[in-house]
């Protein structure tokens, strides 16, 4: 029994002792864990703070300086480095104990870059803490440059700055006595390295985006230049065609028969079409390249309407439509005379083109108050199908019912009108009923002219 009891008592004591031991061990672990937690939270706080400082830096150079100094101070270092190694070029920024007292940052030039052996210790996701550079096997025979030797760096921490292409640099911390860096130190420096890596990557992305935008802008400019050059180049052959055509019709080449004259007239009409198309392309090119300058002058609407009327009269006569023009004499527009003339001519041209023989085209202008003048061009023409009206201001758009020979055109007129009007800060509205006619209203800045008192 005793034989049994003893072991039992022994066992009990053993169990109790074990329990006690476990319990006290746990207490001990709790204390350690609390210390560990405090250190971890302090490290996190340090990381967070330094990241904030780096983010607040206006440029990368400042961010490197700040990172080196912050790491140096926070980790009680004698030396802290940020070094970039890219395409053979090495750049470093460094902080040295004592900098804060002198108020002068150490210039990077005062330090030699760390030798390759130091970088060979790290990988994209692997930091290296070297307790003693003098005994570390990988650093034996390495030229631990003046930066390290003169400051007698003994304990070293190297954390990689990585990009998608691998290690592009490192944040390095050094102590001149053997005080190895612990894992919290590693955490802080790794987070700083990560912040710097992200800043570098952001800058690279920004630079890429800037380059893309620049390339697109250059492409756009060259496209506009191309349109302008082509339009100019087209004018030279057109000069011979239109010139000889006129000379033939004038009889400079001998008598012209009736049949020949008919054919020459068709050539003439199409030459004119080409010419108008070239002018429209040039205008579009100018609008696109931003070269369409809008000079703001007071333009009397009566003068504008009279000029447009004179220009459109031959087309009006040929189409057999009636043109009525009326303006309140004292209305003045603020804008570019030539461009406003073009707006009116394009609108009248469309109206005449799409109005059958015997129809009526009306152009009018009136002051609508509060600094606005409205130009309205109304026709009794074929109208525009309702479902196509939304696309009318799109370049090269032609309504499906614009099929008559007289209605030939490229579909640039309204797009030009719309661009010019918006450049003037105005707006274009259009109402149309198929088979009945169209009303286009252009609202532009303007005013009623104050009449000069008679003497």
């Amino acid at each position, binding site marked *: 029994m005793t034989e049994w009891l003893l072991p039992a008592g022994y066992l009990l004591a053993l169990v109790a002792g074990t329990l006690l031991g476990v319990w006290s061990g746990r207490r001990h672990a709790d204390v350690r864990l609390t210390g560990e937690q405090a250190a971890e939270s302090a490290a996190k706080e340090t990381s967070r703070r330094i990241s904030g400082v780096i983010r607040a830096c206006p440029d990368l150079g400042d961010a490197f300086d700040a990172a080196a100094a912050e790491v140096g101070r926070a980790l009680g270092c004698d030396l802290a480095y940020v070094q970039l190694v890219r395409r053979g070029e090495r750049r470093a920024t460094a902080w040295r104990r004592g900098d804060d007292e002198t108020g002068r940052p150490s210039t990077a030039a005062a330090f030699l870059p760390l030798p390759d052996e130091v970088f060979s210790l790290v990988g994209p996701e692997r930091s290296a803490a070297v307790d003693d550079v003098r005994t570390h096997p990988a650093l034996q025979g390495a030229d631990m440059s003046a930066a390290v030797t003169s400051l007698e760096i003994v304990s070293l921490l190297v954390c990689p700055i990585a990009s998608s292409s691998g290690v592009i640099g490192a944040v390095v911390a050094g102590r001149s006595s053997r005080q190895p860096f612990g894992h919290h130190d590693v955490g802080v420096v790794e987070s700083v390295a990560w912040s710097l890596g992200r800043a570098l990557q952001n800058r690279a992305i920004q630079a890429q985006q800037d380059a893309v935008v620049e390339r697109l802008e250059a492409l756009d400019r060259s496209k506009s230049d191309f349109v302008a050059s082509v339009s100019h180049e087209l*004018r*030279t052959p057109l000069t011979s065609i*239109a*010139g000889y055509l006129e000379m033939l019709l004038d009889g400079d080449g001998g008598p012209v028969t009736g049949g020949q004259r008919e054919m020459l007239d068709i050539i003439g009409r199409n030459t004119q079409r080409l010419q108008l198309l070239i002018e429209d392309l*040039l205008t579009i090119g100018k609008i696109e390249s931003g070269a369409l300058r809008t000079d703001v002058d007071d333009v009397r609407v009566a003068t504008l309407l009279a000029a447009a009327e004179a220009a459109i009269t031959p087309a009006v006569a040929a189409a057999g439509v009636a043109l009525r023009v009326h303006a309140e004499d004292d209305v003045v527009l603020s804008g570019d005379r030539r461009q406003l003339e073009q707006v009116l001519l394009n609108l009248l041209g469309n109206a005449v083109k799409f109005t059958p023989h015997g129809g009526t085209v009306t152009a009018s202008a009136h002051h609508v108050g509060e600094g606005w003048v409205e130009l309205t061009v109304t026709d009794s023409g074929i109208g525009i199908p309702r479902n196509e009206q939304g696309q009318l201001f799109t370049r090269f758009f032609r309504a499906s019912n614009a099929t008559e020979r007289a209605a030939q055109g490229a579909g640039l007129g309204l797009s030009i009108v719309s661009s010019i009007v918006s450049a003037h800060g105005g707006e274009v509205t259009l109402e149309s009923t198929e088979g009945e006619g169209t009303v286009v209203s252009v609202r532009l800045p303007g005013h009623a002219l104050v009449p000069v008192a008679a003497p």
Partner: protein
Amino acid sequence: MSDASPGRTRPLVLLAEDDPDVRDMIERKLRGDDMDVIAVSDGVAALHAAKTMRPDLVLLDVMMPGMTGLQICHELRSNVATDNLPVMLITARARAEDIQTGYDAGADDYIVKPFSPRDLVTRIRDGLMAVRR
């Protein structure tokens, strides 16, 4: 200025235009309208002819290889022998600022391509009249 071409019954027009078809067309039209024409295809020849042939009027294309119409116009204006010579520019560039550049270079008239040959003759006659006055 007195008549630059004493004893000459037909006016002499110097034409510089590098496009052969446009050059021939203008020459044909002017000859048909009782004018004599010296036609050249580049700026250097134009400047030489302007100084040696004593034309009554010079018709210059703006865009020419070697020397532009604007440069020739400028040269003519800065030379005592030719500073009164009527100069007309022909160009494919029709922007207001291009036209202003032409007048700034000392041109008397400015014609934009494509133009009416009939209109060109009228303007040349006007230019010749202006000098005689």
